[in-house]
C-alpha cells in the first residue's frame, strides 16, 4: 500500500499559488494574466505531483538498498505539463508584446461589435432601411382599404 497522505506544506503552497493565479488571471493587463497563468500552471503541476503519493527513492529498478520508490508516472506527466506551460508562456509573451506594439499597452480590449449590438437593442430602432421596408408612406389600413374597393366595384 502506498502512503497517500499528502504533504501539508505542498498542499498549502498549491492553495496559495492557485489563489494568486486566479487573482492575477482576473486582471485586465495581459502581462499580469501571463504571470497568473504561470502561477496557476505551477500550482497544478505541484498538485499532480502530490497526487502521486509520498516522495521516496528514485524509481529505478535494481537500486541498492531497496526501499519505497516514488511514483514515476506523475513525474512524467508533470514534465509534459511543464513543457506545455513553457510554450504557452512564450506565446502569451509574444501576444502581449504584439499588443504593446499596436496599442502601446497590453490591456485586453472589449468586443466592439458586442457593444454595438447592445446599443442597437437599447435604441430599439430598425437596423436598416431599403425600398422594401419603406412602403411609400401609406399605412396598412389605407392599403387594405384600396384592396377592399376592388371587391365592391360591382355594387351600386
Amino acid at each position, binding site marked *: 500500500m502506498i502512503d*497517500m497522505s499528502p504533504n501539508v506544506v505542498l498542499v498549502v503552497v498549491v492553495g496559495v499559488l492557485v489563489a494568486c493565479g486566479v487573482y492575477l488571471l482576473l486582471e485586465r493587463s495581459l502581462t499580469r494574466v501571463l504571470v497568473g497563468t504561470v502561477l496557476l500552471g505551477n500550482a497544478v503541476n505541484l498538485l499532480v505531483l502530490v497526487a502521486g503519493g509520498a516522495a521516496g527513492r528514485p524509481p529505478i*529498478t535494481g537500486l541498492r538498498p531497496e526501499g519505497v520508490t516514488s511514483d514515476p*508516472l506523475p513525474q512524467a*506527466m508533470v514534465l*509534459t505539463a511543464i513543457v506545455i506551460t513553457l510554450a504557452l508562456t512564450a506565446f*502569451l509573451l509574444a501576444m502581449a508584446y*504584439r499588443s504593446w506594439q499596436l496599442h502601446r499597452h497590453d490591456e485586453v480590449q472589449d468586443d466592439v461589435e458586442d457593444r454595438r449590438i447592445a446599443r442597437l*437593442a437599447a435604441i430599439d430602432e430598425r*437596423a436598416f432601411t*431599403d425600398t422594401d421596408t419603406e412602403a411609400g408612406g401609406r399605412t396598412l389600413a389605407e392599403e387594405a382599404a384600396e384592396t377592399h374597393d376592388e371587391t365592391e366595384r360591382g355594387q351600386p
Partner: protein
Amino acid sequence: MTDWAWLVPLPVLLPLAGAGLTLALYRRPRIQRVVSVAVLAVVLVVSAALVVLADDGPLVVDIGGWAAPVGIDLVADRLAALMLAVSSAVTLCVLVYSLAQGQTEGEESAPVSIYHPTYLVLAAGVADAFLSGDLFNLYVGFEILLVASYVLITLSGSAERIRAGTVYVVVALLSSVLFLVAIGGVYAATGTVNMAQLALRLPEVDPGVRLVLQVMLITAFAIKAAVFPLSAWLPDSYPTAPAPVTAVFAGLLTKVGVYAIIRTQSLLFPEGRLDDVLLWAALATMVVGILGAVAQDDVKRLLSFTLVSHIGYMVFGIALASDGGWTAAVYYVVHHITVQTALFLVVGLVERVGGTTSLDRLGGLARIAPVLAVLFFVPAMNLAGIPPLSGFLGKLGLLQAGVQDGSWLAWTLVVGSVVTSLLTLYALVKAWNKAFWQTPPQEVAPQRLPLGMVGPAAALVVLGLGLTVAAGPLFAYTERAAVALQDRARYVEAVLPDGLRGTGESVDVATEGTDG
C-alpha cells in the same frame, strides 16, 4: 483485425511528420502545398479504412510497445473512427479552400509559410484527441490542437485578431488547467489515467469523490465545447480569424470537446448522475445561443452563435444517456461538423464578393453570384432542420429519444429544441434574405469566383447532402457505435485483454517485477 492495428497511429503521425517537413520547406510554398494536401488525403483514406475496420471491434495500439495502463494506448472504436473520418474530410476540404484563397489574394490574407505546419499540427492534435485511450494523452492532444489554434487565430497579428486571440487563449488555458487538475484528482483517487482501467476502478471510488471528478472533467470539456454558460468566448473570438480558419475551428474544435464529454459520460461515469444538469445546460445552450444569433447582423457572428446553440442538441442527446440519445447525438455531431464548416466557407466567399460580412452592407448577391446563393441556402436549410435534409433527421432522432425518455425535463428539451430549430430557420433566412435579396446598399462589381474556393465549399455542401442520402447506413453505424459506447466491457477487454495489462512488450517485465 489486429493485423490492421498499425493504421491507428497514422492519422497522428503523418500530419506531425508533414508539419516538420513543411516547416523545413518554408521557402518552397509550392512543395509545401503538395505535402500538406498529400498528407491530409492519405489521412482521409486511412481514417475511412478505420471506420470500416473498427466496425468489427476496437483497434488498439500500445505505443512504443509499452503495455497499456502505464504505457499510452490509442484506441479506434466506432465513435473515434467515425469522428476521425469526418474531421479529416473537413480538414482536407478547408485546406484546399485556403490554398485557393492564398493563391488569388496573395500572401497577405491567408497562407503564410507558417500556415501549413500549424494546420497540420492542428489536424494531428484533433486526431490524437479522438484516438486517445488515455486521459493524459487526451490532455496532450487537446494542447497540441489548442497551441496550433492559438497561432491560427492570431495569424498576421492584426489588432483585431490579437484582441480576439487574447480572450480565446486565456479561456482555453483556463480549461486546460481545470482538465489537468481533474487528471491529478483522478490519478490520486485511482492510481491510473488509462481510460479502460479507469472504467474498472472508478466504480470502487467513493461516490462523492467520483462526482467531484466528473464535475471537473465535464466543466473542462464544456468550456472547450462552448456549452452555456461557458460559451461566451466563442462568438467573441471565432469571427475575426480568416475564413478557412474559422471554418475548421467551428467544425472541429468544439466537437472535440463534445467527443470528450461523450467519452467521459459513457466510459468513465456511466451512472449518469449529472444527466439532469446537462439537460438544463443543453436547453440553456440551445435557447440562449440562438437568441444571440437572432440579434446579430454580421453573418460570421450569427453563425458562431448558431454553432453555440447547436452544441446544445448534442449535449441533449448525450444527457439522455439512452441508445436513441447516443445514436442521434453522434449522428448530429457528424452532420453539424460538415454543415457548419460548409456555411463558414461559403461566408468566406460572400465576404470575398461583397467585401464585408455585415448584413447591413451586403445585398443583391443572388444576382451577382447565384451559385453562392444556392451554396449558402442548402446548408442553411440543413442546419435549420428542413426535411428531408440531415439536420432534420438528426433532430428527429433526438426528439424521438427525448419522447422515449418521457420525463418532463426531456419533454421540455423536446419543446426547446423545436423552438430553437424554428429560430435557427428565422435567423438564417433573415441572413440569406439580407445578403442575397435585399437591394444592395452599394453596388458590387461582379467578379469571378475562384474555382479552387467554390469547389471545396461545394464539396462540403454535397457531403452534407450525402449524409441525408446515406442516412440509413450512417444511422445504423452510429447506433452500433452507441451500443458499443454502453458495452464498456468490450472496450476494456480490447485494451486490457486480461483485465490488468495491455499487449505491449512490458507485459513480460511486469510479470517478473512487482506490479506498482
